[in-house]
Structures are given as C-alpha cells and as structure tokens.
C-alpha cells in the first residue's frame, strides 16, 4: 500500500562531491518495496523547491526500519537533500510505480549509468533469491563517475566502461565487448540517461532479447493523478509514475 511517512535522517555517505547515499529511519514499519519502486520526497527548508522529488529506492532494512536512497545532486532539490541535519525530519510518499520483472533461474544483464544504478541493488538481491545469474555493466564518463561496484560485486560479475578509459573498457556502455560475445541473456535491465537506454534497447532488440528500461520524467504527483509524466508508448501516452517507471522497451515509442 502507498503511504505517506515521516523519517529521520540517520546518515550520509558521500561517494564524491555530488553523489551521496542518504539513510533514513522511522519509528514505524517500512512498507514492502519492489525493485524499481520510487519515492516522492518532500525537500525541507528549501524556498525554491515546491514539488516533491521522485527518487528510486536503493534499499530497505525492515529489521531496523531504514530506507536508503542514492542521489546525484544535479539541481536545487537534490542538493538540498544532501544538506540536511542528522536527525532532521523528512516526509516521503512511497512505494510508487511498478517494478522490474524478477525472472527465475535465468541469466540477466543489468546496464546502468549515472543515478540510474539506484534500483539495481534491490533488483540484484531479488534476482539472486530466485537463482538468476546477474552480470552488471556500469558506465561513466570517468572512473570518478562509477559507483556502487563493490555492492554490485556481491551479486555478480561487474563490467565497467568509461569514456576516458580510466576504469574498465574505454567507450560507451554499448561499445563494451560483452555485446560482441554470445549474448545468452534472458533479459536486459537498463536505467540511466535516455540515449544510453535507447542504445541498449536497440542492441537488445537486434539480439532478440527482452529489455526493461526504467524511465525518468518530470513528475508532479507521482501517483497517477495529474497525468503530467507521460511517455509515448504503442498503447498511447502512459504515466511513468504508475504504468512505469519500468517499461518493456518494445512498448516505448522513443
């Protein structure tokens, strides 16, 4: 069930100047979260930020009632969320949106870039529970843009590309040698910048592999009430916040 809940800021982990993980705690239970779900976070003490901000759920801990987000500070809201006092309170509406399909006893490729890697920790852990073998392919401009590889390593092989070659193979994710190998994946998951996802979806379709992409969009409500966040699909305009954020790339008109 969707819920509006108050949390306290427990801690920050800064990955570099702009990227951080924020951990929130609550007195009450945390709702069950599926991989791909997101939250609408109210940014406190920020005169410039009027609407909530949609952020994927990185991880939840039902034992300790904590929830984590991985955020890239790109504007006023995401910056202010990285600048709160420990223990200060924060209001979130969650869990929102649909989720990735969790396939059983298969092989999956997960391709992410930028803040698009956030949903993949939860996804990988569910896939592992279902005995699906996971390969990660994470891209960034430089080695400084590639995060969470250690965490991903706990769930499968981690491949990296950087545009400057400072980590892993040099080039864009879609230029990685994994795509020239036998592509015996049953499903490709992707989340990140639109051009990256499109390129990945194209390769998937060429190779006849299903591909699920998690989209972003400008959102007002996050719960399907305003119809602001549509993306064109073969079925017409659909809301990224409710019919998405995860779409089968075959259905997308992009």
């Amino acid at each position: 069930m969707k819920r509006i809940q108050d949390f306290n800021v427990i801690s920050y982990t800064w990955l570099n100047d702009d990227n951080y993980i924020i951990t929130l705690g609550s007195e009450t239970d945390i709702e069950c979260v599926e991989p791909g779900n997101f939250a609408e976070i109210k940014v406190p003490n920020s005169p410039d930020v009027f609407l909530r901000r949609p952020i994927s759920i990185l991880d939840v801990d039902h034992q300790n009632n904590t929830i984590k987000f991985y955020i890239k500070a790109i504007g006023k809201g995401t910056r202010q969320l990285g600048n709160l006092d420990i223990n200060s309170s924060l209001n979130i509406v969650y869990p929102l949106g649909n989720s990735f399909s969790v396939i059983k006893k298969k092989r999956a490729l997960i391709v992410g870039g930028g803040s698009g890697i956030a949903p993949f920790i939860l996804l990988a852990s569910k896939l592992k529970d279902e005995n699906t073998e996971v390969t990660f392919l994470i891209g960034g401009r430089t080695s400084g843009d590639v995060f969470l590889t250690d965490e991903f390593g706990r769930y499968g092989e981690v491949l990296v590309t950087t545009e400057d070659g400072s980590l892993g193979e040099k080039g864009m994710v879609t230029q990685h040698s994994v795509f020239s190998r036998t592509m015996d994946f049953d499903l490709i998951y992707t989340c990140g910048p639109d051009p990256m996802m499109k390129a990945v979806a194209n390769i998937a379709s060429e190779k006849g592999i299903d591909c699920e992409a998690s989209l972003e969009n400008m959102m007002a409500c996050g719960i399907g009430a305003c119809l602001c966040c549509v993306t064109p699909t073969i079925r017409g305009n659909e809301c990224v916040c409710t019919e998405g954020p995860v779409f089968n790339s075959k259905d997308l008109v992009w």
Partner: protein
Amino acid sequence: MVNLNVNIAGLKLKNPVTTASGTFGFGEEFEDFIDLNKLGGIFVKGLTLYNREGNDYPRMAETPSGMLNAVGLQNKGIDYFINTIYPKIKKWDTQIFPNINGSVVEDYIAVAEKLNDVEGIEGLELNISCPNVKEGGMAFGVSCPSAIAVTKAVREVYDKTIIVKLSPNVTDITEIAKGVEGAGADGVSLINTLLGMAIDANTRKPILSTITGGLSGPAIKPVAIRMVWQVYNAVKIPIVGIGGIMNATDAIEFMLAGSTAIQVGTANFIDPQISVKIVDGLEDYCTQNRITEISDLIGGMIS
C-alpha cells in the same frame, strides 16, 4: 458542534472541501492516503466526448510557489467514464462532479446529455477555461458571447446542477460570470489556471511541449481571491473558489471572499492527505471562533 454543510443551488455538500479537476484523478489514486467519504465533493479529471491522448511531454514545469501544466485533457472519453470508472467510484459518500470539455458546443451537449441520465451524479462542472487545448477550451471562457452560448446549450439538455468553470485570463471576469448566470448556470467555479510559460535558459527551449501552459499553486492565490471577491459582488449564484489553497487558512480566506465551497488542486501533489486535513482545519477554525454554521463565513469579509 459545527455544521459544515454548504449548499450549491440546492445540492448539499457535507462540507465545503472538494478537489479540483485534473489534480485528483478520479479519486481512487488517493484511496491509500485518505478516507474519500470525508470530502464534500470530487471534481474528476476533465472529460471529453471521445478518447484524447493529450499533449506531448514534457507537460510540467515547476515555478516559484507553483507549477505549469500542459496535460491537454488526456482522458478515455465520457463513455469510458460512465461505464467503467463511475461504477468503481460511486461507492463513496461524496458528490462526484464530472468536469466536461469540448472543442465545439455540440461536444459539450453530447457529453452533458450522457451525464444527465447517470444516477448518483448530481451536477457537472462545465469547463470553458482549459488553456491547454488548441480548439475550444479557454476560447469559450474568454469571450462573453461564447461563454453564454455554451452554457445555454448545456442548460437545455442537462437537468441537474451546472457549475461553470471560469478562466482568469480575462479583462473582466464579472462580465463572464454575469453572462453565464443569465444563461442558466447554477454556480461558477474559479479560477482555472493562468496562462504562463517557462524557458530553460541552458537549452534555450521552452520547457513545455506546448510552449505555454496553465499556472497553478499558491503563486496564483492572490489573483484567485480577488476574482472570487469581484464575482461575489457581481452575481447571486454560489461560487466554488479555487487557486493555490494549501491549508485551512487559505480555504477560510476564499470563503470570506465569497466562496460557498472550495477546490483543492495542486496541494494534493505536495500532500496527498491535504484535502481531509483541510476539512479538519475548517472545523477547528469554526470551533475556535465559535461559529456554528460554516456557511456564515461565506462572503463574510469585513471591509
């Protein structure tokens, strides 16, 4: 004990708090957050005769204390509403008001005719103020003759309560309000969104696919309150006040200016529970101020 009932041309609302069209879906979207039976009414998402895909994305831009939208009346058409949606939402003990739209007068008539026969729906909101569609929409609401014409046409085919939703993008809103009053409207609701626009200085492109869109939220509250007060002094029919209402105090201000009921719009996005919180807040205000009938507040500004 406070009596929160208000009355729109004979139609009783259990309290003055309703939700604004296009900001509350069909109500269902809020079921997880609030008890919908507590609302005075729900103005559902704008409906048209046939399915509409609405505008391309991006449809939304954040602005200082507000937002622009360019949804463009995306909906599955009136038949889908009547046959599929309404049966699911009629269980709630609250008034459901369809918000109807058209490109030409005939569309409005067709939609109103269909609604006339729906049991349980006691009134409709005639939207002549949507800024986000190329044809019809706001064009009806910014000219007095066309506002009168469409109201008259719908009045002829619709027997229950008609609330005409007015556009703020006009020189003199009282003229339009008087026009639709004369044409048979039972009430007016105001304001719809102000026509606005946003540009991204980095890309140098407009943020919305439609370039212009509708401005809502607290930014427009002072304009809305002014218009409610002007219309209150110009017509006798009840007013449903809309525009940037974020809390019970705002709702009180709209009632003092002359609103019989109010609609909560953009605030639903920021706090999905806000509509019910406002109901509670109105009751508290009345208790604190020893008001036993909330309707005594309507137009109660002391000037």
